[in-house]
């Protein structure tokens, strides 16, 4: 019985190690790809009432956070802040409106060309012509 248990522990430990290695390899092989150079993008903010504000941004930033920093510098009506985590910024406030899930029961959701974003703001690559929408979303 003890031998069977030890065998199961060893096998499961090997499975875990192999999975970690395989997942790390995949993560390294298929990162979010960015492009250098000038880009014209649209950053849209949809507030809690559903009102939309669009900002046309010309930027050479490769990632969305840098493009948003450029916009915040150029346009006083746009601002954002958040909490730094191990894997980038978690956007919590846009244009003065806070959306922290634990406190407000809402969050700022990122959409890229209308599709739900797959990356955080720090990792989201910026592509010429794309629209990045920040939408205030409350828990239902």
């Amino acid at each position, binding site marked *: 019985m003890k031998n069977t248990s030890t065998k199961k522990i060893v096998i*499961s430990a090997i*499975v875990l190690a192999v999975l970690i290695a395989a997942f790390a390899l995949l993560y390294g092989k298929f990162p979010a790809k960015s492009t250098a150079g000038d880009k014209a993008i649209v950053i849209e903010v949809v507030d809690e009432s559903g009102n939309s504000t669009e900002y046309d941004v010309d930027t050479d930033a490769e990632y969305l956070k840098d493009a948003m920093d450029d916009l915040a510098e150029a346009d006083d009506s746009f601002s954002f802040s958040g909490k730094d985590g191990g894997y980038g910024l978690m956007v919590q406030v846009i244009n003065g409106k806070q959306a922290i899930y634990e406190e407000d029961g809402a969050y700022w959701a990122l959409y890229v060309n209308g599709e739900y974003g797959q990356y955080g703001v720090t990792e989201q690559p910026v592509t010429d012509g794309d629209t990045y929408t920040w939408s205030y979303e409350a828990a239902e």
Partner: protein
Amino acid sequence: MEILILGHMKRLNSMEDKFRFSAKDIALIGAMIAVIEVCKAVLSFMPNVELTTFWLIMFTLYFGRKVIAVVPAFILVEGIIYGMNTWWIMYLYIWPLLVLLTWLFRKEDSALFWAIFSGIFGLCFGALCSITYFFIGFSSGGIAAGFNTAFPWWIAGIMWDMIHCVGNFVLMLFLYKPIRNVMKRF
């Protein structure tokens, strides 16, 4: 003939008893869901560190069939509290799968084994969630679209799955024995 019918009825009654819950069972099921929800709320400030996996494993190991009622009730409560979005669809198969896998290994009583098991589950959580995204993409453009929707979504979250893996592993490793000792009293 009468004896045969009586025997058949007895067997049916015994099956019915097996899936019938007493008032104590229902109270216990409510307590299990409350424990999961409270732990979830307490740990909500730490992304991907959770005790739901730990508790569902422990409940399956020590309360057996009662967990059959816990999982759907827990998923329903989650949907009511947080809204029934895409993630809720994922919960419909992810947590029952955890319970099923736990039940398959229910004879194991090693903290290390269950820590590794929890770690693997945490690591694969994103991959399991991406199945829903595959079908979302598939519905609009076939297999290729399904793959293109699910794969980048899963890859983008691998680092979070790693955190999930470590969190699950550590929590199970340290909590398994003390909680098991308490649960044995029930």
